């Protein structure tokens, strides 16, 4: 259900919305150095990957290494989404966005510096990964605590 919701919000709605936006607006954004179509396509791709990751997690037990690996991958993927949002579509900028345009001998550059939040998001991601590992170890130890008692239960 959650995977479907993510798919609808991040993939289906942006792709549908892209068709609704008039071409003049797209051209206007493009002339200001801002590729809206590319941004929407990237959001749709992110939505698709997130849905797949959530769907895959549902197939595995919490005690399996694959579940832990998928948890870590989806946490890192959320970090990339944060970089993507802070960089207005350019995650490689790590929160430093530069939008520049030039017309008639006038050049204009706008720079947004939100790198602090990119660093904070990285720390949060690190803590989330530690949390996932601790939870995995806890689930594992619960299983190993239950398993030795099983033969005794059946003997009774």
């Amino acid at each position: 259900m959650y995977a479907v919701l993510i798919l609808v919000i991040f993939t289906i709605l942006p792709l549908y919305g892209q068709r609704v936006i008039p071409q003049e607006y797209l051209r206007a954004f493009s002339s200001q150095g801002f590729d809206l179509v590319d941004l929407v396509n990237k959001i749709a791709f992110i939505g698709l990957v997130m849905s797949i990751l959530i769907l895959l997690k549902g197939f595995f037990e919490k005690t399996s290494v694959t579940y832990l690996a998928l948890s870590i991958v989806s946490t890192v993927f959320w970090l990339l989404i944060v970089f993507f949002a802070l960089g207005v579509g350019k995650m490689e900028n790590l929160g430093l966005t530069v939008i520049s345009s030039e017309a008639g001998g006038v050049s204009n550059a706008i720079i947004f510096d939100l790198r602090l939040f990119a660093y904070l998001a990285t720390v949060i991601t690190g803590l989330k990964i530690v949390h996932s590992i601790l939870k995995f170890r806890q689930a594992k130890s619960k299983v190993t605590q239950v398993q030795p008692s099983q033969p005794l239960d059946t003997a009774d």
Partner: protein
Amino acid sequence: MKNMNRIKVLRLGIIGFEVLTIALCLLSIYTLFNALSTAISGGTMNLNLNKDESTGEWRFVLNGNPKNTGFLGVTLFFEVAVLDLSGQDIARNSTSVYVPAGGANQFSLSLTVPPDVVPGGNLEEAEGYFELRFAVRTLGDLVGFTNILRIGGEAAS
């Protein structure tokens, strides 16, 4: 049991950290846009360009009294420069002013353009660039917005 508590504490810590980060992000962005809208609104800035007839120098003066109606203090930075066609500085000056949350602060920035770079004493005939840099920073100057405007080039013949 001890391990379980540790995991719960970590989880609560992460949630708290996330909430704090989101709150700071929203607050900073709101403050930046708020400072931008008040800084460029009418009445807060006064721009003068005068020629000193005795020396032939052009004097650019920017006076301002920006207000900050945001929730965080902001530092405003202004820089003006005149550059030649190769991008080398002819004249450059800058100033910065801290405006506390809910307050206002005055600043003044002047730039003198030497007469030898203005042929015939007419600025419109001068070849080169005029650059204006404006920046707003908040949250201990860790978050910010910068706008660099460059006008000019070769004089129209």
